[in-house]
Structure formats: C-alpha cells, structure tokens
C-alpha cells in the first residue's frame, strides 16, 4: 500500500461530483471546494484560449506544502493537500472518496 492511498495522508480533501456537489471531504473541505472549482474554471478557459483542451491537474507548491486539484474523466473534481509535501502520484490519491 502506498501512502497516497491512505486518507490519513491528506490534511485536506474534497471531492466534487460533476453536478457541483461536495460528496466527500475532510479538513477545510468547503474552502478547498470553492478554490478547486474556481481554479478549474480558469484553467479550462486558458486551455480554450490556447486550444490545448481541458486542464487535468493543477498544482500549487508552497514553502510548506502543496495543493493539488485533479479533474477526473467523469468530470468530478478532487482537491487535496497531502500531509507529506513530496507525495508524488496524484491519481491514486484522487480515488479517495470516490467509492471506487
């Protein structure tokens, strides 16, 4: 088992379904949901302007951590902050809260 599959490895986490509803979360889930949705929207607009498609992963690196937003194929948006700043793969993390 990798650390990415462990929900306790996440300080904050939120899953937003394609209808825009928060369906799972922990920590600052509501604030993370607002931020993730806003960032996704802007990133997609940039993709349209540059004709490079929709944004799939958005990551902000801070001195003490990272915020990661992942758009899944079904349109769900996952926002998370790993407890370990260097946690690598985001896709396994994103499955948390999906019920899969």
């Amino acid at each position: 088992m990798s650390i990415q599959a462990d929900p306790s490895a996440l300080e904050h986490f939120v899953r937003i379904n394609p209808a825009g509803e928060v369906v799972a979360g922990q920590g600052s889930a509501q604030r993370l949901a607002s931020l993730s949705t806003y960032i996704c929207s802007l990133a997609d607009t940039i993709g349209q302007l540059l004709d490079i498609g929709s944004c799939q992963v958005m990551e902000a690196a801070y001195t003490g951590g990272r915020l990661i937003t992942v758009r899944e194929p079904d349109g769900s948006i996952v926002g998370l902050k790993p407890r370990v700043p260097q946690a690598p793969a985001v896709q396994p993390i994103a499955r948390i809260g999906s019920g899969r």
Partner: protein
Amino acid sequence: MSNPQVLTTLHALRHAPGVLGSFLWMDDGRLVAADVTPARPAAQLQMVARRLASIATAYASAGQCLEHVTLVYEQYQLHISGLANASLVVVLTRACSLPTVLPVIDDVLRELSRMPELGLATSTQRTPVTTILEPERLQPDAARSYRGGRILE
C-alpha cells in the same frame, strides 16, 4: 511587444529538454516578452496572462508563501513562477520532468530579476490573504478579512 534582452533570456529556456517556450508579463497586465512556438497574438497571451494571474492570486490567498503553480493539460504543462511584480510562464511538454527543468527556470528568474529596466524585485513569493493550509480552528471572535477568511496573526 517583446523586450529583446528579456527575449534572449527566455530563449535560453529552450535548451532545457521538454521546454517549448515561455512568456513574461508584469502584474499590471503588460506583456514584456513572449518566446512561444507557434507564435501567438499578443492579445491572446494577454488574456491568458490575466487568467493565470487570477489563478496565482487565488492560490496565494489560500496558503503561505506560494512558490509556483503548474497546470497540466493533455499534451502540455504550463508552469507559472512569480517575481515580486511579474510572472513567468513556461510551456512544457506533458512528459517533461519538472524537477529537471526547475533549476533552469530558477536561473532565468534570477537573471530577469537583475534587469533594472524591468524593475523586478527578487522575491519569488506572494503574500497570502488567508490560508486553507492551516487546520480550520473555529475562532468566532477573530477578525475576518473581506474574503471571509481569518486574518493571520
């Protein structure tokens, strides 16, 4: 549109594997230089820059000491790093290994910060307004910023 000295500096990024181009804009929205292929109209890059600035501002308001932002698309990545009053966007292939390129980007940022005509300060960090990186501690009596987040001590 492009400052020649800045353009030369940006062009050095192309030597790094996976780098397809870059552009630099000031926080006031002015596009300083663009080295992207295929060439994009300045107006288009301005619109992109405005939205990238909004993303950086939103992320900066969410945590302390934002260092950089990466947007990953199907075939490309956009890497945004900030000087105190300007931002550099580097266009990368999706397969590009960011840790490999980051030292090169840092070198270019340092070189840009030494160009007095740009008036770029050396700080690469943006000031946070509030934070979601901090655990939510309910403090009903605490003062709040206009964004509704706590004002940090």
